[in-house]
C-alpha cells in the first residue's frame, strides 16, 4: 500500500540526512528511491513538498538538493571534518551545527572573511574547544527565507 504523502516526506527527509551523514554528499533522487522502494516521481514530489515547507532547499534551476541544513550539497567556505567524515556547511552557524547535530568532535576549516587568514574552529561535539572571532548574520531572522541562498 502506498504511503501517505506526509509519511513519505518524513522518510525522505530522514533518508536525505542519513545519506549526507554516511556519504558526505547529497543523495540523488535515485538513491532515495532505491532505499525507500518508492518511484523516482514520488520521491521528486516529496522533495518538492519538503522544499516548499522549508525543510530542505532545492537548486532553483536543476531541482537537485542544495541544502539539508546544516549540510550543503555544494562546496562552501565552511568545511567540517570529524573522525567519521567531512561535509560542507552553508555558513558558520551550520558548520557548528554539523558538530552539534552529530555530537562529534570536529574541526571546522574556514577563513576570516575580513583578512582571509585561516580561522579554524574546534569542538568536542558537546562544547566549543578552540576558535576566536565573531559570526556575522547579514539578514534579519524574519527575512531568512526571502532568499535563502543569500542568507
Amino acid at each position, binding site marked *: 500500500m502506498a504511503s501517505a504523502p506526509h509519511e513519505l516526506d*518524513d522518510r525522505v*527527509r*530522514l533518508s536525505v*540526512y*542519513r545519506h549526507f*551523514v554516511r556519504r558526505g554528499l547529497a543523495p540523488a533522487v535515485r538513491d532515495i528511491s532505491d532505499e525507500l522502494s518508492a518511484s523516482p516521481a514520488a520521491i521528486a514530489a516529496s522533495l518538492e513538498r519538503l522544499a516548499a*515547507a*522549508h*525543510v530542505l532547499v532545492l537548486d532553483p534551476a536543476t531541482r537537485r538538493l542544495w541544502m539539508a*541544513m*546544516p549540510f550543503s550539497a555544494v562546496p562552501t567556505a565552511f568545511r567540517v571534518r570529524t573522525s567519521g567524515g567531512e561535509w560542507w556547511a*552553508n555558513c*558558520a*552557524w*551550520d558548520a*557548528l*551545527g*554539523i*558538530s*552539534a*547535530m*552529530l*555530537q562529534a568532535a570536529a574541526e571546522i576549516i574556514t577563513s576570516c*572573511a*575580513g583578512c582571509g587568514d585561516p580561522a579554524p*574552529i574546534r*569542538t568536542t561535539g558537546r*562544547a*566549543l574547544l578552540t*576558535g*576566536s*572571532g*565573531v*559570526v*556575522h*548574520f*547579514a*539578514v*534579519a*531572522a*524574519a*527575512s*531568512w*527565507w526571502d532568499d535563502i541562498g543569500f*542568507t
Partner: protein
Amino acid sequence: MVRWCAERGRPVGAVISLSTAWALAQAWYSDRLEPAWRRRTATEAQAVFTELGLTDPFWRLAAPASSPES
C-alpha cells in the same frame, strides 16, 4: 564591521560571539536527525533566540505563523 560590510555591499546585520553561535547551533540542530523532528514554530524559534539573549529587533520574527527555520 560596518566598514567591512560597506566595502562588500552587505547589510550590517548582527554580530554574535563564537560561543553564542555554538549555543545557537546546539539549540537549533541537536535534534535534526531524530525521526520525530519537526520545524519549530515561530514562537518556538523566538524562544530559542530569547533564551540565548538574542533579543535585538534583528532576531524578531515578523509573523507568528511563519518560521525562520534554517
